[in-house]
């Protein structure tokens, strides 16, 4: 189908974009890569009065280094992320998860920021951002604020970005020490979303696991941290047995849905298996 008619604004700076949003009327949608928004507009599940296209806001695109973090502009496309040397060096987990997103056509258009603000429970980047303790820089009429990942994902398809606001960039802290990372995604057919997926970052020290950070995809309305697993891994021996024992806690505190792909109890089983695999690989076992 063809989307319903809308007013179109194409700002070139963040300030102009905020103004266009403020003046856009009741129902304003920001257009990033359009790979989630255009499909829902085509199905007329969304029919905004005004669409504010961020495509020409060049300050929102690209990755830069800033002391102890790398900063990813919201409009950086998935393919830009995959080709970026800073991401490859400091946040290989982001690249690994991004490579599993959709297909090459969608990755050419879809953006890092769009995927995070869209906050689909099956989306691959929210759990990664949560595991890496990312910080989100949000701009609004009142200026800018920074929100930690733990407070960013509020509910199903809902983030801390309020009406009238924009996600500007995401800060990924550089991790100190020797970290291994892995994203383990379970899906069944080409270009499919995750049924369940696990993002793991593990720091090893003298044959032990010193610290682990684990994000879960599609195990509830928002991405989750597997805190019980993280606690069990802190100081654990770097062995398959210890990892499996810790991973058996992965379903604790999760609240997955049942849908055509999987029942909730199956997802809770899957998450223990995928956590074991993700942590083992990240720990180099």
């Amino acid at each position, binding site marked *: 189908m063809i989307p319903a008619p809308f007013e*179109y604004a194409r700002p070139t700076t963040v300030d102009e974009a905020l103004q266009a949003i403020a003046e856009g009327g009741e129902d304003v949608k920001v257009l990033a890569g*359009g790979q989630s928004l255009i499909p829902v*507009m085509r199905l007329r599940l969304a029919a905004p009065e005004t669409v504010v296209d961020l495509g020409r806001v060049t300050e929102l695109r690209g990755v830069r280094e800033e002391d102890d973090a790398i900063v990813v502009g919201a409009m950086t496309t998935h393919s830009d992320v995959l080709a970026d040397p800073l991401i490859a060096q400091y946040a290989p987990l982001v690249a690994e998860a991004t490579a599993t997103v959709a297909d*090459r056509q969608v990755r*050419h*258009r879809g953006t890092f920021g769009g995927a995070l603000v869209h906050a689909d429970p099956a989306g691959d980047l929210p759990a990664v951002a949560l595991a890496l303790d990312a910080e989100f820089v949000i701009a609004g009429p009142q200026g800018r604020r920074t929100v930690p990942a733990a407070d960013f994902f509020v509910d199903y398809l809902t983030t801390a970005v309020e009406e009238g606001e924009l996600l500007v960039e995401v800060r990924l802290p550089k991790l100190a020490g020797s970290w291994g990372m892995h994203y383990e995604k379970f899906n069944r057919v080409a270009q499919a979303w995750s049924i369940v997926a696990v993002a793991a970052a593990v720091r090893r020290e003298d044959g032990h696991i010193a610290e682990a950070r684990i994000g879960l995809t599609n195990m509830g309305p928002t991405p989750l941290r597997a805190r019980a697993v993280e606690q069990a891994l802190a100081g654990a021996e770097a062995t398959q047995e210890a990892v499996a024992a810790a991973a058996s806690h992965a379903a604790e505190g999760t609240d997955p849905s049942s849908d055509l792909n999987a029942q909730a109890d199956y997802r809770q089983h899957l998450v223990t298996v995928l956590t074991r695999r993700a942590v083992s690989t990240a720990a180099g076992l």
Partner: protein
Amino acid sequence: MTRISVRVDGASYDDDVEPRTLLVHYLREQLGKVGTVVGCDTSNCGACTVHLDGEAVKSCTVFAVQADGAEVTTIEGVGQDGLHPVQKAFHEMHGLQCGYCTPGMIMASIDLLGENPDPSDDEVREGIEGNLCRCTGYQNIVRAVRHAAAEMRGDGSGPPTDGHAAPAQVDTAAAPHVVGQA
């Protein structure tokens, strides 16, 4: 209406479009570029794939206004003198049956080969995962893409040397147990 300027397959166009016009509809209905087709309503099938500033995109999931100032290449523009090597390989290796997915398959494949000139079977399958084919079972599509890759690399005789020098012989033949049931 919004005014856009685009170059499509080497020609320049200035047109008024409604902002809600999808790029694929602009190409087909306003420019008559009907080589690019629509196969779904959900951004899954990839039949509508074109290149936007050199990158493969699903033209049903881009507004025409987003292509303002850009260079678009459709299946109608890929062959400079006659067929593009990928088009030729799809023909020679029987990479199509009904042909509906073919324009998109070829545009996605050209994009893949730009990034990886010598993909393995698995890399071809992943590279074209955004394109669905209801006829071929993909075997000959993969062969066609690898055949084209060899041709484009200028690797001597062309076809890859791993036993895929010809289209699959058995793909369309009934398997023995099927014959037995008949």
